[in-house]
């Protein structure tokens, strides 16, 4: 009998797949990643669609961060193929990923805190007017664009000349998101976006996350906070021991089931426990 829910789930997933639009922005197939003898990721298939927020869940070391780093160009996968926007890609660096419209906002690592707001938003992608090949900064144009971006995000940052290190956690997330928007990102990956944020700031960041999806971008969030995930995500994928063990739409699951999947108490989680 234990196989029955798995079977039902399998059929559901099959119908989901058939209903799913064929043009998911990201199509990851059979992604694996080994570090020497350690297998961090095994045979992961994931579709990420424009206009939705996808949450990646799992315990520490379950593989969600490794998968995100593959998407972000920080890890080259050992197996599998990655298609983004219809092209098969092989990212050698985060810069490659950025050039394909993938922006990643790492927890605590997204910004250079010694630099100003505008410098962070444009770092590596500055607006320049080259003179004899020397990339002179077009500072007026960048300041104007920063005001537009922060205005769109409804982010209240009083002094855009201030170093990012002097901003609150929520303001930093807004700057990091403005940076992703400025890069014209079509997939925005947020690693623990609400960790270390005050309640009111968490609310703002979650609203921002929804708005990004509603504007037609694909959004992936990695989070330990089940309440935040249920508030913002359309779909959830649970990782365990380097495998994807479950995929659920928000309307078809509840926090208890997700927690059971993460901790291994759920029958579906046993897939990952086989050798």
């Amino acid at each position: 009998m234990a196989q029955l829910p798995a079977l039902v789930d399998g059929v559901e997933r099959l119908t989901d797949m058939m209903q799913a639009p064929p043009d998911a922005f990201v199509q990851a197939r059979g992604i694996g990643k080994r570090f020497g003898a350690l297998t961090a990721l095994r045979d992961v298939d994931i579709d990420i669609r424009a206009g939705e927020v996808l949450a990646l869940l799992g315990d520490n070391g379950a593989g969600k961060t490794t998968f995100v780093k593959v998407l972000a160009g920080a890890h080259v996968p050992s197996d599998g193929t990655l298609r983004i926007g219809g092209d098969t890609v092989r990212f050698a660096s985060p810069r490659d990923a950025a050039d394909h419209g993938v922006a990643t906002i790492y927890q605590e690592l997204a910004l250079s805190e010694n630099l100003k707001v505008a410098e962070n938003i444009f770092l590596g992608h500055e607006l320049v007017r080259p003179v004899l090949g020397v990339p002179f900064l077009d500072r007026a144009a960048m300041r104007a664009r920063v005001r537009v971006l922060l205005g769109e995000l409804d982010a209240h940052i009083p002094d855009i000349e201030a170093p990012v290190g002097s901003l609150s956690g929520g303001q930093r997330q807004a700057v990091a998101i403005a940076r992703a928007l400025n890069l014209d990102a079509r997939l925005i990956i947020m690693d623990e976006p609400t960790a270390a944020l005050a309640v009111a700031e968490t609310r703002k960041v979650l609203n921002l996350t929804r708005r990004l999806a509603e504007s037609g971008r694909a959004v992936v969030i990695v989070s330990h906070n089940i309440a935040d995930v249920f508030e913002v995500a359309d779909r959830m994928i649970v990782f365990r021991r380097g495998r994807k063990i479950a995929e659920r739409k928000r309307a078809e699951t509840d926090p208890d089931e997700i927690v059971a999947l993460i901790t291994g108490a759920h029958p579906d989680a046993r897939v990952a426990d086989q050798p």
Partner: protein
Amino acid sequence: MDDQSGVGRDLTLAAACVAAVFLFALLSPAFGTAGNAATVLRNGYELWLIALGMTLLMAMGAIDVSVGAVMGVTAILTGQALLADLPLGVVMLVGPAAGAMLGLCAGAVVVWGRIPAIVATLGLFGVFRMLIFLVLGGQWLSGLPADLTRVVDWRAAGVPAGLLIVALAYGAAWVFLRRTTYGPHLLAIGFDEDRARLMGLAVTRVRLATFAASGALCGLAGVFYIAIYRNVSMTIGADIALEAVAAVILGGTPIFGGRISLVGTVLGVLLLRILQNGLLLIGVPSLWQTVVTGALLLGVLSAEVVLRRARTGAA
């Protein structure tokens, strides 16, 4: 990029320079003359140039302790170019070009060898010193013509050309730091190299370029050395790495990078040279000069630790 505390540091240093000038002028009648002021500035040329490169490297979280040997090698090359009667324009380019190559070597070892900059450049220091020994063969390079000396000491409206070249180098660095992508990229790497890479910066290129620029400045310092002293001894540049690091730290560019102060470095070099000149004129043996440099460095670093503890303790 310079924050409030940086400005405070500049003012403190400027005040220290002024105080030292008054003190030495009281103690020695020879100190407060126009001629001696010109000498202090002229003695600062090489250190200003080398410390400028060191400032860029340290803002990036790197360091180069082989700078003295690079100045030595390039000074010898410049001297030999001078003896070979090459056109003066070419003679002046030999040093910076060779320095840039040596700086690039150091950068390559650090970047691709993944060796910490202080270790890599300490190793290269030994190699370059051996080069100096092999070329000089235990002799001095001396009896050089005064052609370069005339260039450096030529005055435009009373300002020596040497000082103008130094000012031009700092001005160019300021423009690159404040008006081009180089400044934010350098400081982002200095703040956190891995993070800069994740943010998509061409970290390797910026690091190599900075090592090369520092090498070129050491090469220019080698040209100035020949112009001013017209000889090269085996011990050329033995202490200048310590002096440069001291001047940069005095100036407020932290040793772990992420922040930069060009004004601070200018004043740090000036303070060192005023102290060295003043102490010599009041009769302190020149052996004590490195002690003064070292003591100043230790004093400033320990004062910072104490201040930081006081601040975090209060917070």
